[in-house]
């Protein structure tokens, strides 16, 4: 029986990075405050002490420089894992990610295929206001060449991060910071990976399909419970990855239920939900019993005081589900 322990997401991510540094001599970690201090959320705690300041180190405060330098390190044979302190601060590095990292393999005819993992905490619910709450997944999912992966619990966080580190593509690894310390789960001590592009049906049902990822998965589960109380049997899918995304899994479910609702924190317009709705109706149009629906953040910047009115809640999702099932 393999060893396991109860860990929160931060501890699970820390364990994954520890394993990665231990097994891969080219692995390095860089970012703001990730060294001695262990990161503002302490995900890299103790790693510099264990692996040295050449492999785990602080950088000047410049996200474009961090990603650009890490890309060069990857070209030079290393396997960098970058931490961008908050997803809201990733935009200075946008050019390096979108123009360089995402396109390097293609434009070089695969002569070079720099691999990076860019870890960054995303999402609201921590009273972070405009600039400590954003969900930028759609920007990156819109860029060919990038993977965008979003774990929803500690077990998954460790297995997905190790899979991202072993993957040959650049990975934007969005960590739902609201869940960092929210709960603990059983996490094996050993090295393991989980598929980067496979969605999981986490609750089966026949009346509607509810799709979510990251911090919204818990909201979706809760909404499904509320719906159950009203006599509806809702299937819940954890999408896990938005680029690429597991359309087959969603379509299989929608073919059974005839209804789909997707939940995400990012603003609705041009959000990932729109993409999923379009793709599902292309594949399952004739099986649909109701218009496809989404519950998302509003098309406003992320608010501070009224964030509870911005973030999709279980109650709001259940409200929309009811509308959908009764259509």
């Amino acid at each position: 029986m393999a060893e396991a322990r109860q860990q929160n997401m931060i501890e699970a991510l820390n364990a994954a990075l520890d394993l990665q540094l231990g097994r891969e001599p080219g692995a390095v970690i860089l970012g703001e405050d990730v060294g001695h201090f262990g990161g503002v959320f302490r995900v890299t705690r103790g790693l510099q002490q264990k692996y040295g300041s050449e492999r785990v180190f602080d950088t000047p405060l410049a996200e474009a420089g961090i990603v650009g330098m890490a890309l060069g390190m990857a070209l030079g044979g290393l396997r960098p894992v970058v931490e961008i302190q908050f997803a809201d601060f990733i935009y200075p590095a946008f050019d390096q990610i979108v123009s360089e990292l995402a396109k390097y393999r293609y434009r070089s005819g695969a002569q070079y295929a720099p691999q990076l993992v860019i870890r960054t905490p995303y999402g609201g619910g921590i009273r972070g206001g405009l600039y400590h709450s954003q969900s930028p997944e759609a920007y990156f999912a819109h860029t060919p060449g990038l993977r965008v992966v979003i774990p929803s619990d500690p077990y998954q966080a460790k297995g997905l991060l190790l899979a991202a580190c072993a993957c040959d593509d650049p990975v934007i690894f969005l960590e739902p910071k609201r869940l960092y310390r929210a709960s603990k789960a059983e996490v094996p001590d050993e090295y393991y990976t989980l598929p980067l592009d496979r969605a999981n049906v986490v609750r089966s049902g026949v009346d509607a399909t509810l799709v979510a990822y990251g911090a919204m998965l818990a909201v979706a589960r809760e909404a499904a419970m509320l719906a159950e109380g009203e006599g509806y049997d809702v299937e819940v899918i954890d999408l896990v990855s938005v680029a690429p995304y597991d359309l087959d899994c969603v379509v299989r479910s929608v073919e059974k239920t005839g209804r789909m609702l997707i939940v995400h924190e990012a603003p609705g317009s041009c959000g990932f939900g729109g993409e999923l709705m379009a793709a599902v109706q292309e594949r399952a149009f004739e099986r649909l019993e109701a218009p496809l629906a989404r519950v998302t953040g509003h098309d406003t910047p992320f608010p501070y005081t009224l964030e509870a009115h911005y973030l999709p809640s279980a109650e709001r999702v259940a409200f929309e589900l009811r509308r959908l099932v009764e259509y």
Partner: protein
Amino acid sequence: MSQPPFAILNEDGSCPEEFGELLEDEALLRALDTMILNRVLDERFLKLQRQGRLGFYMTSRGEEATTIGSALCLNPDDPIFLSYRELGALLHRGVPLDAILNQYIGNNRDLCRGRQMPVHYCYREFAIPSVSSPVGTQLPHACGFAYAAKLRGTGHVTLAFLGEGTASQGDFHTALNFAGVFHVPAVYVIRNNGYAISTPESVQTAATSLAGRAEGYGLRGWRIDGNDLLAVTNAVGEAVERARGGEGPTLIEALTYRVGAHSTADDPSSYRSDEEAARWQQLDPLARLGRHARWRGICDDERERAVFRGCEERVSALVAECEAWPPPELESLFADVTAEMTPQLSAQREAYLRFVASRETDFEDVP
């Protein structure tokens, strides 16, 4: 007024005794011949573009001493992060001419599978990483590669080129700042050719010297005559040696002049004077190195003419050969985006191939 840039070559082709052995005769002739080849290629490719046989081209005339003089200071496996106007560095590296021309044409022999515009080079076998159009993005990469070299103990030094306009980009600042902080074995060479397309240097900076910025990043800075191959070799050579010896990065500003247009889509007559161009013509790097070679007694007009002729013949044969290759296969459009094709792209590919198969005419007719 800023100090005059560091130079070695005198007007008559002579040079001070202390620099007489900076380059051996053989290396000097190789640099001279590479310059001639560069010039022949520039003229030919410009003509091909005008004839509609190349989609786009950028000449490097006037800047060959900076590019070739820098490249010859490196080991063959030291990476060169190019801006785009550094054909001379590739030629010195020994990248085969057909590999270069296949890239310009974007045919099925192009290593990058016809995906980029001409002059966006990438030759991993020759330690030339990929060029992109947004300027300055390569500068942090050079720092990161140098960090990797240091950590892995490979002994590599990285060289990165940029234009003076690019010194206005954020990536320039972050790259030099990071390079200084991490003390990496990197050398940054600014080709200060006076113009970013039409915008003169005076609009890029109020400073009188870009090399002066080095101090602000804790780097050494050196401002040199970029049309003097010996000055370039001396400065870059010393910077490379120091970098390899663990003494950190250097910023070199090479003063030169973009004799031609920015690109084949540009017309410099609308923003700069003939007098200015004529003044720089007097400082032509090929003529200056040629005079020096004659002063050394290792070259004469006859030799130079023969080299020109040889290059022209080589290039003529090459153009015919490379133009004969067909475009890349349609499948290559969908390859190399990620390690494995995503289901989304795979579905798009299938849909597109169905469309292509439905047409009655050949694929070549698709607009």
